[in-house]
């Protein structure tokens, strides 16, 4: 059997190379996020946001932008026969799951490299919260990548893929959203970041990540079968 590390690197490298070459997901995700911030900026008619409203605007925008990437995560495998090629190879299917989670994680981090500075320019008075905010988003991204990969692999064979992904993913992302906004809220408080219950929410995010990574590890093999 091919070592999992080699299979992981091959699949992740293939996905990132194809995305860099075609730019099918990332520009759409970033443009969606920036446009949504513009809509919030004028819809709310506010030049500054703080606390739960700021946390909600940031997280909801990132979550909906992420769905665009989740929708396309397995499209090449479906349309170009990659599923068969992967299933023919003597590899541990967990490596496929891990590589897809990693690819989606890279997309989400790249999205945030664009979206978070734009959010800060539009709505924040200071950049003091950005460092701890990056930690919260990284943990939330891992959970979203694990859940998104699972849902995307299930939905890709359906013609209603674009509908199924948000319909199934969003309810599963509710606990993640509660924890992410719970952790973001004190960071974006008026007067600079506070750390009230910050550790608790980080622990919830870690738990969510762990649960969905383990679920993916346990069931992904079956999702690839006919």
């Amino acid at each position, binding site marked *: *059997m*091919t*070592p999992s590390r*080699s*299979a992981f*690197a*091959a*699949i992740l*490298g*293939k996905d990132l*190379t*194809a995305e860099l*070459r*075609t730019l099918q997901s990332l520009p759409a995700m970033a443009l969606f996020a920036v446009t949504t911030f513009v809509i919030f900026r004028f819809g709310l008619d506010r030049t500054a946001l703080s606390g739960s409203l700021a946390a909600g605007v940031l997280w909801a925008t990132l979550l909906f932008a992420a769905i665009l990437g989740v929708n396309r995560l397995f499209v*090449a495998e479906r349309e*170009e*026969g*990659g599923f*068969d*090629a*992967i*299933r*023919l*190879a*003597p*590899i541990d299917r967990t490596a496929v799951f891990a590589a897809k989670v990693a690819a989606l994680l890279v997309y989400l981090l790249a999205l945030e490299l664009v979206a978070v500075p734009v959010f800060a320019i539009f709505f924040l008075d200071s950049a003091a919260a950005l460092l701890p905010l990056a930690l919260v988003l990284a943990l939330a991204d891992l959970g979203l990548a694990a859940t998104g990969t699972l849902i995307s692999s299930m939905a890709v064979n359906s013609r209603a893929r674009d509908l199924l992904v948000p319909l199934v993913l969003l309810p599963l992302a509710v606990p993640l959203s509660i924890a992410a906004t719970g952790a973001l809220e004190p960071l974006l408080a008026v007067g600079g970041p506070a750390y009230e219950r910050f550790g608790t929410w980080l622990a919830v995010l870690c738990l969510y990540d762990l649960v969905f990574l383990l679920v993916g590890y346990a069931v992904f093999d079956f999702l690839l*079968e*006919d």
Partner: protein
Amino acid sequence: MTAAIELRGLRREYGERPALAGVDVSLALGESLLVLGPNGSGKTTLLRILATLLRPSGGEARVFGASLPGDAWKVRGRIGLLGHDALLYRDLSARENLRFHARLHGLRGEAAEARIGELLAAVAMERRADDRVAELSAGMRQRIAACRCVLHEPDLLLLDEPDSNLDAEGRELVGGLVGPAAGRARVLVSHDPERHRGEADRVLELGVGGAVAEAAGAA
């Protein structure tokens, strides 16, 4: 000696519709099986079951002694499939696709590069090897797909219309890669029996609905 393929009463249904209805055949290493039959007779279904990509509904299927689908993991990597889909990513070049498949099959570094170079030369595709697959003609894609199929030197080749989209030169070059060879078994689906009957040791003829019309040694 373990047979390359052993099928006993193999069945596959899609819902209520039978695709294969009781196929019995065995094939030794070094032999070729030619599978004939009209459209809808289950030829592709048979290949997909042998490739471990589809579960049988009933009967017994063994590849190199491993029972399918339970022990499929034991024989993946010993099978090469050249089917209707090229199994190539359109946005990667031909060489990048072959590198990707080489890594999936545990080939890396100089050994992989040498093998890829050798195969590209064998199908006269060195000059277009760095073009994206989307930019290649259907015949060129089929040549690259043949390279992918034999890249890891499989012991069992499953060939579904391997001549599709190929011109005379392409047929000859691809035939050199996927033709009969000692030490490997082949299952070949073709709508052109006269072209392939000469290289077949056994012939399996399927009827509509997967009924076995004939299973015999080649004439």
